[in-house]
């Protein structure tokens, strides 16, 4: 695992010629009122985990839904896997969405389907065989340590278990980009830590780029200062002063992107809002 010092600006993770999986260029969006997001520009590189910070109601979830075309911007352009999706017809965007995984705030599991059918939703739509589905669902559930929930319904799971099943559903199709919408929101500290551990496991085992929305600093910092140790089977802290070079930060304030950089940059930012948020 590559690490870099938090005391010095870390080197960027991806190779210089690697094209980003998602790009925002001067994106703005409004809903019957002042802009929710204004002039947002950033990109997500291969292998990169970007953590989007900001207080509640600042437009973080809206930004996440713009990436895979669930919402369309009023201005600017969005590139997903190199394709401009801002004005792409809905039918064409489905194939691109299928290449991303998304974990919603409350899990958004289909309550009329079993956990097996929820996790296998994409595979079922593609007409995969029952044996293949069962094997892949069990593997995905094993990844989130919930194999025993295979035949259960979402209503019989706790909030934390639903989020873990949602992570399994997002991972089963081997996505090329994963979007997490406040995966630890409303959960107790122990369950939150388990979810962050899963995200670190996904980052360090599968090395899939991701964008994680959160307003919980402790989760963001834990993800940046820990790595998943496959031998121990749990998250372990990086040596003192080091952080994961593939994990970087974005921060929103009233619809504007006010920070885009590393943990070192975030901790030493002069921006008054960033300082206030960190304190």
């Amino acid at each position, binding site marked *: 695992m590559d690490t870099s010092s938090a005391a010095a600006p870390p080197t960027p993770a991806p190779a210089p010629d690697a094209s980003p999986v998602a790009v925002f260029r001067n994106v703005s969006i409004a809903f019957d009122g002042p802009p929710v997001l204004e002039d947002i520009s950033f990109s997500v590189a291969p292998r990169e985990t970007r953590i989007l910070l900001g207080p509640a109601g600042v437009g973080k979830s809206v930004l996440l*839904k713009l990436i*895979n075309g*669930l919402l369309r911007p009023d201005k600017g352009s969005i590139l997903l896997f190199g394709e401009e999706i801002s004005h792409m017809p*809905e*039918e064409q965007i*489905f*194939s691109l*969405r*299928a290449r*991303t995984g*998304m974990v*919603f*705030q*409350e899990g*958004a*599991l*289909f*309550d009329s389907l079993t956990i097996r059918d929820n996790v296998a*939703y*994409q595979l079922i*739509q593609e007409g995969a065989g029952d044996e293949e589905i069962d094997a892949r669902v069990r593997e995905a559930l094993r990844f989130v340590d919930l194999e025993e929930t295979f035949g259960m319904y979402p209503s019989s799971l706790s909030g934390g278990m639903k989020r873990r099943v949602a992570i399994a*559903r997002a991972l089963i199709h081997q996505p090329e980009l994963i*979007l997490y919408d406040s995966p630890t929101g409303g959960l107790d500290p122990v369950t939150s830590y388990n979810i962050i551990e899963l995200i670190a496991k996904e980052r360090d085992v599968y090395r899939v780029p991701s964008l994680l929305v959160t307003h919980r600093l402790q989760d963001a910092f834990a993800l940046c200062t820990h790595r998943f140790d496959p031998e121990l089977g749990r998250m372990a802290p990086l040596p003192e002063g080091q952080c994961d070079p593939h994990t970087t930060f974005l921060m929103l304030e009233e619809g504007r992107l006010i920070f885009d950089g590393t943990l070192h940059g975030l901790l030493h930012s002069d921006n008054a809002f960033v300082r206030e948020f960190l304190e």
Partner: protein
Amino acid sequence: MAINSIDRTAKQIVLTVQDYSLLAWNAFLNLFRPPIYWPEFLIQSDVIGFGSLSIVVLSGFFTGCVLALQSAATLAQFGATAVTGRFVSMSMIRELGPVLTGIMVSGRNASSIASELGSMVVTEQIDAMRALGVDPIRKLVTPRIFACISMLFFLTILADAFGILGGATVTVFLNHQNGTQYFSMAWEYLRFPDILQGLVKPLFFGYIVASIGCFYGLRTTGGTQGVGRSTISAVVNSSVLIIFVDFLISQIMVFFFR
């Protein structure tokens, strides 16, 4: 200020009609474009068709009873009680069968469709479906419309049959008239345009019930309260639209088959 308000309301209405037209048109086109979700269609046919069977049969039967009871009293003044069967069958097949069935199915299914889809919207299940690469219009709306059209067609035939049977029950047991005469009059004066009119209407009504239910369900906002509002809007608007479209179809049929 008042002009601004009128302007906003007018734009809102135009936008709603535009959104509904787009959804209804896309859902209609999906009937002829693969993939068609046949298992969903069968499940919805069971929910809408078999689930509405009892209310449609009962409402049809008692409507026939009331028709026979009321018409016999009036017809007796002209010494024409013998045509009660003709009156009941004509009324049921041309108007009351399709309209009553449409409204009963609307009350039961437009509301359930709107609340089901509305709940899926507020819990982000629709967004999750889209994020997983599945078109919710194709997966949820089209099978419901297809099922509602086909089931309402058969439910209307059943309502007509039970309405005529209800009329016969009143005619024979309460009015003490001849049952054979009732059925003979009910059958003898039926013409092809009457049956055509009665069978064309449920096709339109089924489309209205399902598309309005889906439309209001999918545009739900504002949490559980919003789900309640969507359910009310779906039932009210589909019921009014059914009666309005009934008037239009009747007008067209009268024009072509007078």
